[in-house]
């Protein structure tokens, strides 16, 4: 059988492109490894309340001691993946796609829904200046942003960040704020004129967390589960859309296969994939192939197809700094067990004179496994526990994102033994900018200092991009045209982060999804016009 479309991967871009094809009346085949949660148990009560009365070893550490991963192994995984219930997200990633990391942290997922199972849930539209290096304008993506907003259910607000986050069309009301965030926001409003004059703006994030019941899914309830369990109905992940499409028989989902490469036969493509259970190879034929395996895995499939073990493709990630904000009068305060595990407030630093725009996601330190903070404290065992108990309730953390581009890219190369070599220099953070950021937070009444700020290794933000850039007129291998079609590889389309040679200082997933849907629309149009031509 020759399929019209084969999509590789079921992450945000794979599912968004599938939705685009379905809405054009095309039934794509999705090839995926497709790991799912091994334990579907979901609690019905507040996680902290439960732990007050029950032994939570199995829940918090896991029967196989999964939560101790970061302590025992040298390869660190980010906090949300510590949960035993989230471990399926990265299951066998190192086996299927081994990587030699040299200064660049590689995290891959072969789960249904990909890394979005553990995402930070923030979804932002891109402004025109944030689509630099691409042949796109934000107006090209507008209808797809609107359609996806309707599909996903995004909460947000019309506020000072609207000029940076774009249209508020279709947004659900914003989610509530914790006490510290409320104080910070009210101080911002009082000092707004001075802050705005210095290019600082604050407002509500755009989150795919439902603030009210929507599309047969319940609104958010403060139960502390969002950092620990996957597939909570009030947090959107692409799995919801995918499962809906599978149920409606509008896509064919073939799981347990790992796509390796493609070949060509006459006028169609043959996708070669390994059955992960038996190890046998399978062939799938299609007219058009859509690569949505994520920046790293897509690059690997392309390089493997070309048997190219020398080319170094560019790769980069957002720079990320973690800024603690201390509110001294909250020392000794009761821990708020009903705050949200996602960002509550956003802050944008728009430094015109430096042509630099940063975005900070402001979060409560309410991660349910409190022991993870033990490692970050410098005191004796018992004193660390005292600080976890009395001091952490007085702290917010800002994840401060820096824009990144092909200019500070490292590289990715496929070795002939199948291992990826991923290299990056440490990112350079402008000390003056860091000082300015600290000053702004002090102006807002929160204590911080540049020396307290931690800078993450490249790759830690997991906003990978740049390997197969989209340009107006591709002239060389590994470039794609405006519709993601690979140079000299007709009918092979890339729809994920690989296409972008610049990523702004904010989560780019929503833009990647909208772009994937735009490309699906374009391909559908071509398929239809070909059929009409034949008829």
């Amino acid at each position, binding site marked *: 059988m020759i399929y019209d479309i084969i999509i590789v991967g079921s992450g945000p871009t794979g599912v968004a492109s599938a939705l685009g094809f379905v809405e054009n009346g095309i039934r794509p085949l999705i090839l995926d490894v497709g790991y799912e949660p091994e334990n579907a148990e979901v609690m019905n009560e507040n996680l902290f309340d439960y732990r007050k009365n029950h032994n939570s070893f199995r829940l918090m550490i896991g029967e196989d001691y999964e939560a101790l991963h970061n302590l025992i192994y040298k390869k660190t995984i980010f906090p949300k993946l510590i949960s035993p219930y989230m471990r399926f997200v990265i299951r066998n990633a190192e086996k299927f796609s081994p990587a030699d990391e040299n200064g660049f942290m590689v995290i891959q997922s072969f789960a249904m829904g990909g890394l979005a199972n553990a995402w930070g849930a923030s979804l932002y539209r891109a402004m025109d200046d944030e689509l630099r290096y691409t042949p796109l304008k934000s107006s090209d993506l507008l209808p797809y942003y609107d359609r996806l907003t309707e599909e996903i259910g995004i909460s947000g607000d019309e506020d000072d960040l609207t000029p940076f986050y774009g249209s508020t069309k279709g947004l659900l009301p914003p989610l509530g704020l914790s006490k510290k965030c409320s104080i910070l926001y009210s101080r911002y409003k009082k000092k707004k004129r001075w802050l705005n004059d210095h290019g600082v703006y604050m407002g509500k994030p755009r989150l795919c967390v439902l603030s009210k019941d929507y599309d047969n899914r319940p609104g958010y309830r403060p139960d502390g589960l969002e950092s620990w369990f996957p597939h909570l109905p009030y947090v959107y992940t692409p799995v919801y859309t995918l499962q809906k499409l599978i149920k409606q028989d509008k896509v064919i989902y073939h799981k347990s296969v790992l796509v390796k490469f493609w070949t060509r036969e006459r006028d169609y493509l043959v996708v070669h994939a390994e059955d992960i259970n038996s190890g046998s190879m399978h062939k799938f034929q299609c007219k058009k192939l859509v690569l949505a395996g994520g920046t790293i895995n897509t690059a690997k499939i392309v390089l493997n197809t070309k048997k190219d073990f020398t080319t170094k493709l560019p790769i980069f990630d957002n720079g990320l700094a973690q800024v603690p904000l201390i509110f001294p009068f909250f020392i000794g305060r009761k821990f708020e067990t009903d705050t949200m595990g996602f960002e509550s407030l956003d802050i944008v630093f728009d430094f015109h004179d430096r042509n630099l725009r940063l975005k900070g996601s402001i979060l409560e330190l309410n991660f349910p496994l409190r022991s993870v903070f033990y490692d970050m404290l410098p005191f004796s*065992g018992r004193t660390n526990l005292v600080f976890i*108990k009395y001091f952490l309730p007085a702290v917010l953390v800002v994840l401060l994102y820096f824009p990144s581009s092909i200019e500070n890219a490292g590289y990715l190369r496929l070795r002939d033994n199948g291992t990826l070599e991923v290299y990056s220099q440490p990112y350079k953070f402008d000390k003056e900018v860091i000082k300015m950021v600290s000053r702004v937070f002090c102006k807002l009444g929160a204590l911080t200092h540049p020396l307290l700020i931690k800078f993450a290794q490249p790759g830690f933000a997991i906003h990978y991009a740049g390997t197969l850039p989209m340009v107006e007129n591709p002239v060389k291998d590994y470039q794609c045209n405006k519709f993601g079609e690979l140079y000299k590889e007709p009918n092979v389309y890339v729809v994920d982060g690989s296409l972008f040679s610049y990523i702004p200082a904010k989560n780019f997933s929503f833009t990647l999804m909208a772009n994937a849907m735009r490309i699906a629309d374009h391909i559908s149009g071509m398929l239809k016009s070909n059929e009409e031509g034949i008829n």
Partner: protein
Amino acid sequence: MYESEAEKIYKAIFDTEVPESIQKQFNIISERIDFLFNSEEIKKYNKSILQIHDLEALEVAARYMKKLPLLTLKFKIMVYLGETLPENYPKYINENDSFFTGFISLFYSLIRTSYKLVKGIILIVINRL
């Protein structure tokens, strides 16, 4: 060996006897991690468990002096395991509003940690760990 380790480390962190469930969990994870360390590191660790009474002091000093990595790791593991017991919940989560209690506790703990650090350094030097 693992039993006495669990007892001493738990006591050093939580100041109570180690519950049986934690002891079992600690033994299982200890068997898995010991092979990550070389024999010299394990020997020094065993010596410290057998000879030193104040493990809290030893651990904080060892952390600063980049010594006894196995002791540091086992302390951390015990902190994680200990958090799963409902009786330890109040040691991690503050359930009452009191700036005064919080401030005094932090202040006292900082002084205590300084004392433990100095004591730990002396222990390491004297015992040649």
